[in-house]
């Protein structure tokens, strides 16, 4: 494909879309789909046809619109000069007739109205999610019409690989998987590494319970990720890419497969992309349910068909990765940021966010918050703005207690830090991490000790068993937490727990073990009283310091 052909395709698709005077968008991402949004879409299509409006009114399935709590969501846009948009919430197939009637008479259905001038929509800034909920994820033409693959074209035709890396470095983008390593630096390491072939891997093993940003991006805008990977391949000199995606995300897998097939057909993936010597193929590899495979060396082992066990670094994957070759591994959201950065320049991106954390970040808001769903905000927004303005606060008149970020590797942040800006360094300072973007809000009814125990149980079952501190340590910590919750522990047990946290943190092989004490440490730091209230006092007898049961061997119960 040439640049002209790309432009023609975009033009054709734009014309096609402009023909319709109204566009009805129905969210068919996993969230709304589980509330039967596919039936809503079918009913709307049928009603439009019944009313004889199929030439003026286009009904299409799109990706996530963000406000999952109010799904299924439907948006109706009049393609007139004013581009007025009406959004409907909690739509059922039975509402289709009324909605179509409303379009016909230009009278929106008040009963189903979902206001879009509220902070949930107006306070967001969308870069990664700009196409989510707008384009049909299964049509490459719509992605191309939305400037898709133009960044890839710009790279291969006007920039040298070095210049591409330079732009990414200028943007200040940091890895969105959680650790926040400089993406530009990683790219330059792989670009400089000796050895061929080189590989590009997209980490879509979103194992952090409570996070669903990557799933939404893959389901709503898969081409964005493919374009980012292809640009990365050009920059570092790779010829083969893999997307390692969880088997638990069947819809994301399906849409990725469709996207790869379309991209190959159009010629933006495969051999001689845009008629240049760049050749890049992408294959999907399915994860099989192991949290540790989010760790890059474990992920590589899994692609090689092994058990997902990490190995010591260095050598880093940039030098010796997949099959011993230089490998670039980035997260889904990192790749999704690449195309806009190259399209608008690194400086544009660097102007958004804070001094050390540039750009925007997507978060999955869940737990005890009114507006659960997917959001994207500039770095540096405060937790209070995110939870109380965008999130709409705590439902049922309850009181906020803590917000958990970073999943099993992160911590619980109490009320006193609500006015802290959200960026990599501030979160680390209060004992949590940015993580991949899961944000679970807890109200006064949640027990923080139980939350710590929940995450420790998670880490214990997910420990790969390779290194002793993690394998044995997480089990012992879990036993101690259970003992505390059962009301059988004493102050000595808490002291032992703290010592264990310290030891596991400093001696584990990989990130899973090193960060597993974080939920315990942060709850001990901010909610110590909850632990103390559960303790037995020495004078009540029983200082019963039973040894926690050993036997960390991960038994399979299924």
């Amino acid at each position: 494909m040439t640049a002209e052909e790309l432009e023609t395709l975009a033009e054709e698709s734009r014309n096609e879309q402009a023909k319709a005077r109204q566009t009805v968008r129905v969210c068919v991402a996993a969230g709304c789909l589980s509330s039967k949004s596919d039936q809503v879409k079918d009913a709307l299509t049928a009603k439009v046809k019944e009313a004889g409006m199929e030439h003026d009114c286009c009904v299409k399935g799109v990706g996530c619109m963000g406000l999952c709590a109010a799904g299924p969501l439907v948006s109706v846009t009049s393609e007139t000069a004013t581009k007025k948009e009406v959004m409907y919430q909690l739509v059922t197939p039975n509402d289709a007739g009324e909605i179509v009637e409303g379009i016909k008479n230009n009278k929106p259905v008040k009963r189903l109205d979902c206001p879009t001038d509220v902070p949930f929509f107006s306070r967001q800034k969308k870069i990664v999610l700009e196409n989510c909920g707008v384009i049909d994820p299964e049509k490459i033409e719509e992605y191309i019409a939305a400037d898709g693959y133009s960044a890839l074209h710009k790279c291969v035709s006007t920039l040298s690989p070095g210049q591409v890396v330079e732009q990414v470095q200028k943007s200040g983008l940091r890895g969105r998987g959680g650790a926040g390593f400089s993406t530009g630096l990683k790219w330059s390491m792989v670009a400089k590494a000796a050895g061929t072939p080189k590989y590009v891997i997209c980490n879509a093993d979103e194992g952090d319970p409570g996070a669903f940003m990557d799933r939404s991006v893959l389901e709503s805008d898969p081409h964005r990720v493919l374009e980012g990977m292809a640009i990365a391949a050009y920059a570092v000199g790779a010829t083969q890419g893999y997307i390692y995606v969880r088997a638990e995300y069947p819809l994301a897998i399906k849409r990725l497969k469709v996207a790869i097939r379309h991209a190959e057909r159009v010629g933006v993936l495969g051999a001689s992309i845009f008629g240049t010597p760049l050749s890049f193929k992408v294959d999907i590899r399915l994860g099989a349910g192991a949290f540790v495979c989010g760790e890059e060396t474990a992920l590589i082992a899994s692609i090689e068909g092994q058990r997902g066990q990490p190995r010591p670094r260095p050598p880093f994957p940039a030098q010796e990765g997949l099959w011993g070759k230089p490998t670039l591994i980035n997260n889904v959201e990192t790749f999704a940021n690449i195309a806009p950065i190259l399209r608008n320049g690194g400086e544009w991106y660097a102007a958004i966010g804070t001094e050390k954390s540039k750009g925007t970040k997507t978060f999955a808001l869940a737990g005890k918050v009114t507006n659960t769903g997917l959001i994207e905000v500039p770095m540096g927004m405060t937790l209070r703005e995110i939870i109380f303005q965008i999130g709409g606060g705590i439902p049922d008149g309850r009181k906020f207690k803590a917000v958990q970020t970073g999943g099993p590797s992160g911590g619980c942040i109490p009320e006193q830090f609500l006015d802290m800006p959200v960026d990599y360094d501030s979160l680390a300072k209060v004992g949590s991490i940015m993580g991949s973007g899961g944000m679970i809000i807890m109200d006064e009814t949640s027990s923080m000790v139980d939350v710590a125990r929940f995450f420790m149980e998670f880490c214990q079952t997910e420990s790969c068993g390779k290194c002793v501190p993690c394998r044995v340590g997480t089990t012992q910590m879990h036993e101690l937490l259970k003992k505390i919750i059962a009301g059988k522990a004493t102050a000595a047990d808490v002291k032992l727990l703290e010592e264990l946290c310290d030891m596991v943190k400093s001696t584990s092989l990989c990130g899973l073990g090193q960060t597993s004490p974080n939920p315990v440490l942060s709850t001990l730091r901010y909610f110590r009283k909850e632990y103390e209230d559960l303790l037995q006092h020495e004078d009540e007898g029983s200082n019963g310091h039973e040894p926690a049961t050993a036997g960390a061997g991960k038994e399979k119960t299924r």
Partner: protein
Amino acid sequence: MVAIAKKPTMPSKDKRWLIIDATMRRHGYVGDSLIESLHAAQEAFGYLDDETMRFVAKSLNVPLSKVYGVSTFYHHFTLKPQGEHTCVVCMGTACYIKGAAELLTVLEKEYGVKGGETTKDGKLSVLTARCLGSCGLAPAVVFDGEVAAKVGKADLLARVAKQVAQ
């Protein structure tokens, strides 16, 4: 990877062996495709039994111990057949905070099975998931592959009763 001198014969005339073989062939019978092959096998048979693991091991020329190791390492693979109906309770953080653990207790009381177990009559398997990514709809439960949002205790029991009655 050493080329395989002789391909093992299919364990039976069951057509599903052909599906598994086709997956392995597409990857050139290399040992690296072990996980992909096991995915295909589990999709075809619903679980991985000894015969399947032996067949995959021989076809890909990898030790049976490694096949067993990989099959038991990953949560997705199961070595036991599942019940006629499945009910997967999501135990991700958001679902846990919103009471997923209580849903499991209710099921245990009613059907006498814990997460990961199947009823004696083989009708129902109660499973737990790490996170379905449907956190906005917590607590989420998957009944026979269909995700249901914001499931309450009464709703759960009604749905499972309907499943089992089928």
